[in-house]
């Protein structure tokens, strides 16, 4: 189990799909191929000459030995042929090499014949040797064949030299690969860091002044980061300014409406103006909340979920007096609901979810909130007994400006759950919605006890 995990770790950290390995293997294989090709050409040149020579030498020495023995035997007993056969037998038994060969004496009489029947005349080559008696013999052998080239090359590579080359080329390839990949990895880490922390910092000058393509890339990334940062802060400023600027005329509009109302207390249009002003104000606030969640990364703080939910339910009791609420605290008390998080974001998320539950409930239908620790997480379940949502609509609820069943007449803008989802994702948490069989909607929020910001 442990070994397996370690191996998984290694595989993951090495990552065989990585550019490092691509470059390394490409260079290594390429350098080995170049060396093999060079070897091939050299061996080819040498081998044909050298090999022929070696072959002919072998032939001559074997033929001379046979001829010497032949003359010696005939002189002694005149029954040489048989002895030579024995000799062949002997050599074969000892696994000695014996070249196929046909030896004729000057009269054309066969002195020695070994496996030459299948060799056609045009593939034979002839040589002359002389016996101790100075008699001339003709020796026929198979024409020298160049040995299989691969065998030759491999034969040569079986040396220490080659092992050296093998290791050296691996080292050089790895080094080359590393020098290319390292700055790329560094740049990646740099931009990831920026994306996570949103704090601007410059790349070190050795990186920027490399002068090669990677240096250019570093300069470009630096430029891009500063531009992105400018754009993000400009967007923040713009949103802030726009919301402020929108609110100023809205406040004036409300004041004007109030003055008209003072003079004509029963004007129903004024009431409409007041209602719409209130709506626009809420919309501005929600859009601001949405963009703030997107663009800021505050410090995590300790937060007691139980107390937070209690406060939210108190607020709900004021806003929706007809909806009874229950809160089930975790076993083991408040300590169990203590988490490190971005409290404002969690507050917004839970407020929107619980608020939705209350909004869509009818008078007397209760909204139940349960807090439950689960491993490294805390699960908050918000259950209402209202009309519920169709299964195929559940996913769409999380889209901005979507409202179930197109209930355009009810209050709100359909931003609440998108804000909640964004806030929960910011913590690395999850949001699930289910329609329980006995009606209503159940929203389950899982938050890690220690916030882990998304990458």
């Amino acid at each position, binding site marked *: 189990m442990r070994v397996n995990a370690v191996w998984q770790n290694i595989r993951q950290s090495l990552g065989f799909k990585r550019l490092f390995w691509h470059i390394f293997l490409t260079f290594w294989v390429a350098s080995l191929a170049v060396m093999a090709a060079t070897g091939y050409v050299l061996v080819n040149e040498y081998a044909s000459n050298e090999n022929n020579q070696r072959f002919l030498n072998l032939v001559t020495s074997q033929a001379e030995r046979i001829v010497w023995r032949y003359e010696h035997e005939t002189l002694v007993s005149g029954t040489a042929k048989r002895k030579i056969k024995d000799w062949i037998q002997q050599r074969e038994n000892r696994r000695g090499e014996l070249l196929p060969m046909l030896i004729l004496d000057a009269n054309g009489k066969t002195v020695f014949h070994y496996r030459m029947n299948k060799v056609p005349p045009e593939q034979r080559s002839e040589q002359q040797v002389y016996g101790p008696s100075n008699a001339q013999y003709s020796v026929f052998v198979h024409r020298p064949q160049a040995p299989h080239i691969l065998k030759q090359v491999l034969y040569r590579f079986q040396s220490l030299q080659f092992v050296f080359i093998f290791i050296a080329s691996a080292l050089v390839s790895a080094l080359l690969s590393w020098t290319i990949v390292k700055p790329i990895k560094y740049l990646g880490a740099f931009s990831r860091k920026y994306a996570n922390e949103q704090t601007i910092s410059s790349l070190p000058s050795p990186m920027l002044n490399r002068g090669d393509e990677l240096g250019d890339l570093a300069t470009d990334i630096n430029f891009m980061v500063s531009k992105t940062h400018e754009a993000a802060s400009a967007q923040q400023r713009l949103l802030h300014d726009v919301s402020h600027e929108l609110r100023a005329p809205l406040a004036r509009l409300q004041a004007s409406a109030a003055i008209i109302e*003072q*003079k004509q207390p029963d004007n129903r249009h004024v009431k409409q103006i007041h209602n719409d002003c209130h709506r626009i104000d809420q919309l501005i606030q929600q859009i601001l909340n949405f963009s703030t969640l997107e663009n800021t990364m505050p410090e995590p703080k300790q937060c007691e979920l139980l107390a937070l939910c209690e406060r939210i339910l*108190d607020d709900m009791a004021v806003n929706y007096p007809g909806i009874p609420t229950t809160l089930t605290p975790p076993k083991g008390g408040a300590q169990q609901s203590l988490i490190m998080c971005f409290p*404002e974001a969690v507050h917004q998320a839970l407020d929107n979810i619980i608020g939705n539950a209350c909004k869509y409930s009818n008078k007397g239908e209760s909204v139940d909130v349960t807090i439950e620790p689960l491993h490294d997480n805390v699960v908050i379940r918000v259950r209402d007994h209202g009309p519920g949502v169709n299964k195929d609509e559940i996913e769409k609820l999380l889209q901005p400006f979507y409202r179930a069943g197109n209930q355009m007449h009810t209050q709100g803008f359909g931003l609440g759950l998108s804000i909640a989802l964004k806030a929960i994702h910011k913590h690395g948490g999850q949001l699930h919605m289910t329609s329980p069989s006995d009606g209503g909607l159940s929203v389950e929020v899982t938050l890690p006890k220690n916030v882990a910001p998304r990458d």
Partner: protein
Amino acid sequence: MENEKYNILLVDDDVDLCALLGEFLEGDGFTVDTLHSGDKAVDTLLNTNKYDTVVLDIMMPGMSGLDVLRTVRAKKQTPILMLTGRGDDIDRIVGLEIGADDYLPKPCNPRELGARIRAIIRRTQQLKSAAVVHTELHGIVLDTGARTATVNKEVLTLTGAEFNALSLLMERAGQTITKQDMTQEVLNRPLEAYDRAMDVHVSRIRQKLSAVGVIDVIKSVRGVGYQMLTTPQPQEQ
């Protein structure tokens, strides 16, 4: 009360809005002056006691509403109502902690503003006319005539709302007072959703009491409100 003209000072950098709110509040029976910068507001407020209530916008270029509040509170107890951005919980709480009497998110319905101003004024008036009562509990001596609270002859500096809250809690010691009731009686207005005014006031009172050695006398009753204990007991929290 209707015949009496109360003086209101509106401080907001939006000139048009000031004019409109001024017109509305005058229609409601107040006498209204307007100022458009924090510095001028500080000058005016430090030199006169003319105003019954000041309406102060938090977001102003230059000297912000919070700066004005801090500077004025150091010398004067003129009732101040803060106009805060909606959703800026922190600004609200900071404003109350520095000593604002109440807050109202902006943009708001001017009728609501008028109601809040009247609530503040009514509260101040009640206190001026209330029968002089001396109450004592846990060594805290309240003098509703002089509006002073002392612990072991040491005077506590309390804002109007804090004094009201403390005297309400002491008056009904041993009973739990709901947040709704407290908001109604101390701030003269109904409790709203996301309304932290009472919590901030009570927490300020606790801090000030513990600074002079009186601890664990105000109990929070979760989901309900607060209670002044007749005998001190440590909080579970």
